C-alpha cells in the first residue's frame, strides 16, 4: 500500500470511488506516516483514533457522490473544529475546545472528508516561518532545520511530507503561498469573500482568506470547489454562483494575456528567482499566451501598508483574549492586573509586537498619519490592479523573493522576515486571488514557486493557467525523507 502516499487527492478519490481503496486503508496509511514524522512537529492536536472510526463508518456506509469520499485531511489549527481543541498556535488558547465548526471545515466534512488532526502554525497566523508558534517551530521536509514558511507552515510541511493528502490553510499576507513556495506544493489564496471566515480565528479581518494547499493544480481546483461557498454568517461573504472549478479546469491558455509587472523586479533579488520567473514567462509564451509588460506603480508601498492595516485589525481582534471568558487566565490582584498577566504570559513576542504596532497606529493623533493613510494607499494599490486588468487576464510573478531559510536565521530581524511577503501582500490588500505553484529549485535544491494573480472571483482562470504551466514545469520534489 505504499503507493497510497503517492496518489494525488484526485487519484485517491477515484480509487475510493472505484473501491480499489477503502477510506480505512488510506486513513491508516496517513496516520502511520504521521506518527513516524513527529520530528517535523506538524501536528498540534492529533485526532487519529476518531479518524479511524470515521473511516470505518464511511466504508460501512459509503457515499460515493461526495466530492471527498472518506478522504482524511489535517487542517491548520486556525479553523475552529467542534469538540476538537483549537489553539491558533497560541498559549492563550492552549486548552480551548470550540463547540462549533468553521464553515470551511464544515464544507469539507459535508463532502465526506475526515479530520486527521490540527496542524501547527504561527501564533494567530502571525509569522512567515512557523517559528512564532507556542507549540514550537515546524521543520520542513525539504531539509533539516529549514523553515517550512508560514504562517501555514504545519500545513505545508505535513502536505509536502505526505502526512495528509491535502490541507487547508489561511492567507492574510502570504500565509498559504509563501509556505507552498518553500515546500514545493500548490497553494491558492482565493478572492476575499469567496470562502467564509466564520469560525476561523481572526487575524486581520479585511485580509484573511482560507484556501486549499495541495500537491497539484487539479487537487487544488477540487478542494477549492468544496470550500468556497456563500455564508450568511459572514457579512463579507459574497453571494454569487460558484463554478465547479474542478470540472471546468482547462489547460488551454492560448490567447490569454499575462502581465509581467516590472515593480516585482526588486533590488537584490537572487538570479535564480529571476531565472525562474523567466522560465515561467517562456512556458506561458510557448503555450500560446501573450506576455504583456505592465506596471503596478504602488507596489513599493504594499509592505508598509500591510504592516499598518494588519496589525491595526489584529490589535482589536485579539482584544477578546482577556482571560475573562475562555482560554488561558493568569490570576491577578484586580481586573487590570489579571489582564496584564494573562496577555503578557498568554501571547508570544511577535503577537505582542503586532498588537503594539496596531494599537499605536490607531491611537488618536496617529490615526490619520498611519491607519487612514494606509487605507488610502490600499485603495491605490487596488486601483493599480484594476488598471492592469483592463489590459491583461492575469499576472505572473515569483511567489517569494528567496527560497526557504534556516530556522533561527531571521528571528531576530523582524524586518527581513516581513520582506519575505513582499510579493504576496499586495494581493491581499487588493482582495484578489492568487495561486503559487512549484516551478523549480534553487542551487541548494530548495523549491521555488511562481505566483499567478487573477481578477476578483476569476479563480478559474488562474487555476487554468497554473494547470497549463504545471504540465510543462513537471516539478518533482527532491525530498529524501530525512526525518524518518
Amino acid at each position, binding site marked *: 500500500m505504499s503507493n497510497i502516499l503517492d496518489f494525488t487527492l484526485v487519484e485517491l478519490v477515484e480509487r475510493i470511488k472505484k473501491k480499489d481503496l477503502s477510506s480505512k486503508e488510506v486513513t491508516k496509511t496517513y496516520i502511520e506516516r504521521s506518527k513516524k514524522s513527529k520530528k517535523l512537529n506538524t501536528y498540534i492536536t492529533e485526532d487519529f483514533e476518531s479518524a479511524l472510526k470515521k473511516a470505518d463508518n464511511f466504508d460501512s456506509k459509503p457515499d460515493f457522490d461526495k466530492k471527498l469520499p472518506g478522504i482524511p485531511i489535517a487542517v491548520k489549527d486556525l479553523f475552529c473544529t467542534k469538540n476538537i481543541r483549537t489553539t491558533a498556535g497560541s498559549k492563550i488558547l492552549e486548552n*480551548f475546545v470550540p463547540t462549533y465548526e468553521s464553515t470551511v471545515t464544515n464544507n469539507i466534512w459535508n463532502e465526506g472528508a475526515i479530520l486527521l488532526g490540527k496542524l501547527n502554525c504561527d501564533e494567530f497566523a502571525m509569522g512567515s516561518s512557523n517559528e512564532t508558534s507556542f507549540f514550537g517551530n515546524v521543520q520542513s521536509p525539504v531539509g533539516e532545520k529549514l523553515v517550512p514558511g508560514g504562517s501555514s507552515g504545519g500545513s505545508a510541511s505535513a502536505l509536502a511530507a505526505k502526512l495528509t493528502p491535502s490541507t487547508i490553510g489561511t492567507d492574510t499576507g502570504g500565509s498559504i503561498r509563501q509556505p507552498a513556495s518553500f515546500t514545493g506544493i500548490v497553494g491558492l489564496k482565493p478572492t476575499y469573500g469567496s470562502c467564509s471566515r466564520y469560525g476561523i480565528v481572526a487575524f486581520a479581518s*479585511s485580509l484573511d482568506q482560507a484556501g486549499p494547499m495541495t500537491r497539484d493544480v487539479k487537487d487544488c481546483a477540487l478542494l477549492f470547489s468544496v470550500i468556497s461557498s456563500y455564508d450568511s454568517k459572514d*457579512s*463579507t461573504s459574497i453571494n454569487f454562483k460558484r463554478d465547479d472549478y474542478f470540472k471546468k479546469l482547462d489547460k488551454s491558455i492560448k490567447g490569454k494575456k499575462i502581465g509581467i509587472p516590472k515593480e516585482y523586479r526588486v533590488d537584490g533579488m537572487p538570479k535564480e528567482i529571476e531565472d525562474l520567473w523567466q522560465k515561467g514567462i517562456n512556458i506561458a509564451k510557448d503555450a500560446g499566451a501573450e506576455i504583456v509588460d505592465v506596471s503596478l506603480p504602488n507596489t513599493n508601498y504594499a509592505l508598509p501598508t500591510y504592516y499598518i492595516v494588519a496589525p491595526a485589525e489584529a*490589535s*482589536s481582534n485579539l482584544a477578546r483574549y482577556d482571560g*475573562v471568558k475562555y482560554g488561558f487566565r493568569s490570576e491577578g490582584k484586580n481586573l487590570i492586573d489579571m489582564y496584564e498577566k494573562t496577555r503578557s504570559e498568554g501571547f508570544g513576542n511577535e503577537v505582542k509586537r503586532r498588537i503594539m504596532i496596531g494599537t499605536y497606529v490607531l*491611537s488618536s493623533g496617529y490615526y490619520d498619519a498611519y491607519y487612514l493613510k494606509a487605507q488610502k494607499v490600499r485603495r491605490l494599490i487596488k486601483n493599480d490592479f484594476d488598471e492592469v486588468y483592463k489590459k491583461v487576464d492575469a499576472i505572473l510573478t515569483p511567489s517569494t523573493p528567496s527560497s526557504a531559510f534556516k530556522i533561527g536565521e531571521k528571528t531576530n530581524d523582524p524586518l527581513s522576515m516581513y520582506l519575505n511577503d513582499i510579493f504576496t501582500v499586495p494581493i491581499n490588500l487588493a482582495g484578489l486571488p492568487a495561486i503559487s505553484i512549484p516551478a523549480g529549485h534553487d542551487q541548494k535544491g530548495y523549491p521555488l514557486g511562481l505566483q499567478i494573480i487573477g481578477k476578483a472571483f476569476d479563480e478559474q482562470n488562474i487555476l487554468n493557467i497554473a494547470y497549463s504551466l504545471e504540465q510543462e514545469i513537471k516539478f518533482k520534489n527532491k525530498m529524501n525523507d530525512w526525518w524518518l
Partner: protein
Amino acid sequence: MMSKKHSDYIIKRNQNNYEVVIGLEVHAQISSQSKLFSSSATKFGAEPNTQVSLVDAAFPGMLPVINEFCIKQAVKTGLGLKAKINKRSIFDRKNYFYADLPQGYQISQYKDPIVGEGSVILDLPLGEKTIGIERLHLEQDAGKSIHDIDPKNTLVDLNRSGVALMEIVSKPDLRSPDEVNAYIKKLRSIMRYLGTCDGNMQEGSLRADVNVSVRKKDEKEFGTRCEIKNVNSIKFMQMAIEHEANRQVDVIEEGGSIDQETRLFDTKKNETRSMRSKEDAHDYRYFPDPDLLPLEINDALINEIKKNMPELPDEKKKRFIDKFNLSAYEANILVSDIETSKYFEEVIKSSDVKLSTNWITGELFALLNDKNLEISKSPISAKNLSKLINLIKDGTISGKIAKSVFEIMAEADKNPIDIVEEKGLKQLSDPKELEVLIDKVINDNPDKVKEYVSGKDKLFGFFVGQVMKVSGGKANPQLINDILKKKLK
C-alpha cells in the same frame, strides 16, 4: 433655536446671572426580538447569561451579522425625529477593555451615523421650543458587571451584551432641568408612538449622559462642559444638572475655571464627582469594523418605512385641535402618551368629544393617579367609559349620578348601563312624573312658596333641592328648573 422667553432658568451669584447649557446623549434600547448582531433574545429580566450567543460572548472566529429589523427601527426613529437618513453609514469599533465587554470593543457608529440632523418640538408652559438633534447612531450595549453578589469576585451577566441601542445626541439647545424633563418625555413619547423603544427607564431601556456647562447671560461662547455619565431617571437628571450647574458657577465665581471631565452623579449624596479628566479619557481607537460592510439603505426601504409611519404626537395634537376643537393644553395632555391617545380615540369613537375629554382628563386621570396605574392598566375600559358618557349625554343619568356610577365601575369594570339598571339610577325625565313630585314639594311648603312669590328669588334653589331629595337624586335638573319656573310663576 432658542427663543429668549424660555430661558427663565438662571443661576444668580454676586450680581452675575448664569445661563445653563445642556445637551443630552440618550441611549434608547431598540424594541426588537433579537440583538443587533446576533439572534439571541433580548427579554428583560431573564436568568443571567441565558440570552447569550457565541457572537455575544466573542468566541474565536465569531462574526457579527446585522439585524435588519434594528436598522428599520433606527430609520423609523430618524424619520420620527424629522431627521436626515444617511443612505450610507459605517460601523466602527470602539476599543476598550472591560470585563463585561467580551469583544474588547463595542461596535458603534462614529463618523458616519445612520441618522443625521433632526429636531424635536417641546411643549413648554410658555409655548413651543425646538430642540435640535445632532445625530442618531446604532451601537451594541455591553454586558453587566455585578459587584455586590460575591464578596470577592465581580460577576458578569452577558444577557445585555450586544443588545441594540440608538444613541440620540441633542444639540446644546436645552437651558433648564424642566426643558430636559420635557425633552426626555417627548423623545420617549415619539419612540413609543413608533414602537421603536419602550422607553422604560426602570429597566434601563432609556438612559442618558448629560453634558452641562454654564455661561454668563448674554455671553456668546459656550462654557467648558462636563459630562455626567449614565443617569437613568428624569428626576436624577434634573438633580444632577442642578447640582452640576451650581458647582460650575461656584468654581467660576471663585475665580477658577472648569476642567472638561467626565463626572458621576451620586444619587444618595445628591452631588456629582469627578470620574476621569480629559487627560485620562480613553483613547477608543475607533476604526471601521472590517467584519461589517458599510451599511447601504436604499430609497425603497426608506419609502416603505415612511409609508407605514404612524401619526406622531405633534400631528395628532394638531388634528385634535383642528378636528375636535380641543385646547392646546388638552391636546397636549391627551397625545403625550400613546396609550392615553389610544384610549381617548377609542372613547370618542362613539361619544361626545368635549364630555370625553373632561371625563378622561378629570375623573379618569384622578382615579389612575390615585391608584398609581398606567392608562393601559385602567380599571375602566374605554368602551365602558364611552357608554357612561353616552348615558350622561342622552340624559339617562345626571353628571352627579354618573360620578357614583364611575366609582362603582372603578371597582369592577362593569357596563354602566347595567349598573344604572340594577341600582335604579335612571334619571327622572318624564315631565308628568316630575310634575307629581314638584306639586308635592309645592304643596308641602306653602310658606316658602309665598316668600318666593313675594320676591325672595334665592328660594328657587331650595325647591330644586327638595325635588331632588324626594326623587332620590334622580330627577333631571334641567327639567326641574323648567317645570318649577312655570309652576311658581
